[in-house]
């Protein structure tokens, strides 16, 4: 089982848990404390398990463009885009961020559980002139309204000038790091990749500067509140971007890409089920796999659910038959022995101010 290079930084302070074959911090001081830190100040996560794939060679973006439904060939160095890898049926192999770097280099950050599969897929579909390397760096996520100010104290250039999805190399007193203004919490923040020993020093330094250590439990609540999909739960190889509410990722004005024909057919025929937001009341959580009912009949299932600490109510994502997917539709979720009323609504449950 792989270990994060940052494990020695926190193994005595965190409750450890297994995720995608990795041992990672599930929780530090507790969900409420960690959640509040990210929403109001800054939280620090170890995300070294995520697949860090470095691509080198000629015309990478041009070749990669055929593997994703978004336009990425024009991405300027220092910018990035959220996109998907699709199979021929339009099913989602993974979601990822493509970071365009100087001199034609490209970095991909992919889901931990998909890393091996993605590497194989990329090898099959990219020319042999493109070299793929799986990096084993430390990857930290510093997230929250104070994240930029905290990171700025260590940075040699202005971070305020970097837009969302922008990224750059930084020289810090601890060593060189790569920092991207991306995240999985719905807040402003940074994902920082560096050598393991620099990452360890950075972990301690960022905590020293006021960041709160956070675990996977808080990360899951934060991402769900922000309406961000979790691969393997809210989408998989048998769901398409059109069903998963990721139609915005698909650019129909670009050239051919893997899965395009299947998606076009699905667009014309319509999708059978759609991923929707479920807004509950009370405190009872609906969880992955729970049935969703309309007029007492099953019309779908929950893929993610939690108690939103920002809203004080249960929230979740569910695939439901398209006829029942309209915002405002009243449904119920079967939570063990109770049918709980929910309303179909936006998938973005929480949006930060400003």
């Amino acid at each position, binding site marked *: 089982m792989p270990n994060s290079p940052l494990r020695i930084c926190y193994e005595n302070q965190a409750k450890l848990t297994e995720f995608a074959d990795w041992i990672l911090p*599930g*929780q530090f001081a*507790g*969900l*409420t404390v960690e959640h509040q830190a990210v929403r109001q100040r800054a939280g620090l996560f170890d995300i070294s398990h995520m697949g860090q794939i470095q691509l080198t060679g000629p015309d990478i973006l041009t070749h990669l463009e055929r593997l994703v439904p978004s336009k990425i060939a024009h991405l300027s160095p220092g910018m990035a885009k959220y996109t998907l890898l699709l199979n021929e049926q339009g099913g989602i192999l993974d979601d990822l961020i493509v970071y365009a770097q100087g001199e034609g280099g490209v970095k991909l950050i992919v889901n931990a559980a998909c890393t091996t599969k993605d590497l194989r897929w990329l090898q099959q579909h990219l020319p042999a002139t493109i070299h793929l390397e799986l990096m084993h760096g430390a990857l930290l996520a510093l997230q929250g309204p104070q994240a930029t100010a905290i990171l700025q104290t260590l940075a040699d250039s202005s971070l305020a000038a970097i837009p969302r999805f922008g990224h750059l190399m930084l020289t810090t007193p601890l060593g060189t790091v790569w920092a991207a203004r991306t995240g999985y919490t719905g807040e402003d923040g940074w994902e920082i990749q560096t050598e393991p020993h620099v990452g360890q020093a950075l972990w301690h330094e960022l905590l020293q500067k006021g960041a709160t250590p956070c675990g996977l*439990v808080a990360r*899951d*609540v934060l991402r769900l509140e922000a309406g961000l999909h979790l691969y393997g739960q809210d989408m998989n190889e048998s769901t398409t971007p059109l069903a998963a509410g990721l139609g915005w990722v698909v650019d129909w004005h670009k050239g051919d890409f893997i899965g395009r024909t299947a998606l076009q057919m699905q667009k014309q025929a319509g999708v059978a089920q759609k991923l929707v937001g479920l807004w509950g009341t*009370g*405190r*009872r*959580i609906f*969880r992955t796999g729970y049935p969703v009912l309309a007029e007492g009949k099953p019309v779908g299932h929950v893929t993610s659910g*939690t*108690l939103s600490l920002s809203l004080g109510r249960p929230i979740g994502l569910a695939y439901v038959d398209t006829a029942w997917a309209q915002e405002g539709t009243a449904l119920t979720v079967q939570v*063990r022995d109770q049918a709980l009323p929910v309303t179909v609504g936006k998938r973005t449950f929480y949006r930060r101010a400003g």
Partner: protein
Amino acid sequence: MALTYPDDLRYTPSHEYVALKDGLAVVGITAFAVDELGDITYLELPPVGHQLQKGERFGTIESVKAVSDLYAPVSGIVTAVHEELVDAPEKIAEDPYGLGWLVKIQMTQPEEIATLLSAADYQAQLGG
């Protein structure tokens, strides 16, 4: 933070405890259960007057991480339910063996107490 298991209580393998007080069995969940669950978000308890068999499910406790059923450590009739905790279940964690009590049971078979685990046995089970 070290988890504690008072010697004067009795325990179940499913992480409930029983405190004997004024002839009643006061039932709650152990510090281990509280720690495992993490922040508690939901609690469901039976009404006063509900009759329970030892081992029967009497409620549900949930956290963001998990759902757990609560099982009656002894047979009897529920004489008191800690209603305040239903509205604020996170308070269980502050004092699981005191203000975090869940129900009080008038035992119909007091000899069942002897079948429950001692603090030492319960801790041995956790260690194993």
